[in-house]
């Protein structure tokens, strides 16, 4: 869940049409049209990626008069399916996957069960990955993959390139090679497995 209280605003005179903003927007809400960037206000999730990367400082973040709440509820879904999807992605359903918005794995799973087919759609529906834009791409890709979805990165964009390895996939040979150098792969696997299997707390979000 995210309360979107900001909106990207382009100063057309400063915009040089370089498309950087288009390439970094995690929800594809800004596009260059006739050599000027244009924001789709209804899509913008107020993440400031475009504002932070525009080489010409042509974008500012304005406070929205009416904040928009974006959230995907698990209500109406078979919760067993939500749990199953999270566990297949090796995540606990209540585990936080986006630290900025405190989005839990179950909400991303619910978005996927409701039809999200790419990280961009997940972010648009849940607000996840519209805070720091950095740390939460992998659990989103893992959840999509666990649902049998293989999204393609936006063409020409820099939004994301691919899923990367998890600790369960580290080759035995690599583990052996670095044993004694302070990397605790197997112990981390045990810890993460315990988290995945931990009981649900349920109830309303704290």
């Amino acid at each position, binding site marked *: 869940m995210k309360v979107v209280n900001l909106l990207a605003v382009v100063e057309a005179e400063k915009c040089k049409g370089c498309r950087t903003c288009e390439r970094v927007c995690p929800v594809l809400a800004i596009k260059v049209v006739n050599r000027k960037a244009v924001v789709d206000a209804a899509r913008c999730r107020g993440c400031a990626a475009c504002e932070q990367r525009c080489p010409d400082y042509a974008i500012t973040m304005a406070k929205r008069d009416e904040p928009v709440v974006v959230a995907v509820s698990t209500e109406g879904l078979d919760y067993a399916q939500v749990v199953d999807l999270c566990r297949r992605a090796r995540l606990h359903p209540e585990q*936080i996957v986006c630290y900025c*918005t405190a989005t839990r794995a179950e909400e991303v799973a619910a978005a996927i069960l409701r039809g999200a087919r790419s990280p961009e759609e997940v972010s648009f529906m849940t607000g996840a990955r519209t805070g720091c834009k950095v740390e939460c791409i992998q659990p989103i890709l893992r959840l999509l993959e666990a649902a049998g979805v293989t999204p393609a990165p936006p063409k020409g964009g820099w939004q994301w390139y691919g899923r990367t390895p998890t600790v369960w996939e580290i080759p035995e040979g690599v583990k052996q090679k670095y044993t004694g150098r302070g990397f605790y792969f197997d112990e981390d696997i045990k810890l993460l497995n315990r988290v995945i299997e931990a009981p649900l707390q349920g109830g309303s979000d704290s």
Partner: protein
Amino acid sequence: MRPPIPPIPPRKSQYGIDPSLVKKRVCELPGMTSVLLKDLFPDLPEVIYPGGEGVAAVRRATEEALRKVDMSRIKPEHSVNILASHHGFTLLGGEPYAEMLKTIKDVVEARTGCKNIRLRAGVGLRFRETEEYIKRFGLDEYFHGKAAGVAPIDEGIPIETEIGTLYGIKKVYDADWIIHAHNSDVREVHFHRQVDRAVKPFGMSYARIETRSTYHQNLGPRAANFTARAIFDSPFVQSKFAFACFLMVAPNGIMGVDADNDLYALNDRVTYLGCRYYGKMMTLFGEIDECIVALDFPCPVVYVFSAGVIYANFAGANTDLYDLDNPLPGYTWYTEAFYGKRGRPLLDDVPPLNPAIKMCVHNYAWTGYPSAFFSEHIPTVVVGWEQAELFNRDPQNLNYMKHAVVAETTEAAMEFAYKVTGTRKVLIFDGAIGGINLSEPLAEFLLKKAPAVSERVENELLPKWLRQRGVDLSHLKQ
């Protein structure tokens, strides 16, 4: 008791309130004093900065350290990227790090005849932060317009590693050679656990979001920093790596500069110094039984520091962050992720945030790092409506003020904290150089505890920490 040490002044930045709004520093309030780190731990090293010579001492130390480095593969017609990171610019005001970067450029140019030397400065989660430092320290002119801030959402490149494909920032690697210009300050011990600290930027400030997310979500709390090693060891990075040059930092200042063609040899030295000097400071802070924490430094909530210890690490000082037998600190992103919907940890053995912190007075700290976990679990008073509003406008902190209250002045915030907590022990995170600003009762407490802590670290903890990391002691003799 000593007077407080002048704290690092507020700095103009898009991530913090305007310096004019910081009307009072916490150390200026009645009852505040300071202790010198050397009075706590007399074995702390001698430092070259701060000192009478200023940054000239850093230049000399850099030139000296680079003498033993082999630069013969860099040819006049080549291009070189000096890789920097934001964090160095937060150390002791930033000048020493900027001076080291300038000196590396000068020495490489003089020794190799190479003129195409660029600066690429990576960031954490504030994508324009190093742009601000590049301007502030005149690095753009110094590098003839070839200094750029790079961010993890910039164009990337795949890097094949022994665990699979990871991703780096294209502009970091767009030269024939890279020079890794960093520092040994420990900073986020909760994340890297002092394992391959010297290698970390390859998995972080030089890396794309895919890699950083691997670190924080895919590997686990004690395997995370392997992402950095995987990237650094890749044939691609090895084919470009020229050498590393580090500002060697202790809690009390800059010890010197170290440089090496072998990053792992340098890493062992960094590990030893980090465990020994910062380990003592953190162990001492772990002894604190109760206190009010005051944040008063120009950087995000988690990174404000006191005696080289960042707030995020004090918030986890109830467990030994250096002891790799402990799977989870009280704060790390993995820990934060493991709190369920009722606000309780999903596992019973997840340690709480340091219960000694009775209240946090946020006098001055920046946005640009997700910090709501702290205000959710530690009673927090933010000084000034402008600062509260800045957090409400930060996409990374939309929940921070949900859990914090606002006081109009520093005095009112501290009065409130004293009344509610009943403690007079105050630890101020204001980056005071060479010492700690704090309240008198806490100063007495720390001075009393320090000798026993020092002995325990030397005899018991340090040997264990180094053993856990397989540190090669022969590298330390160099």
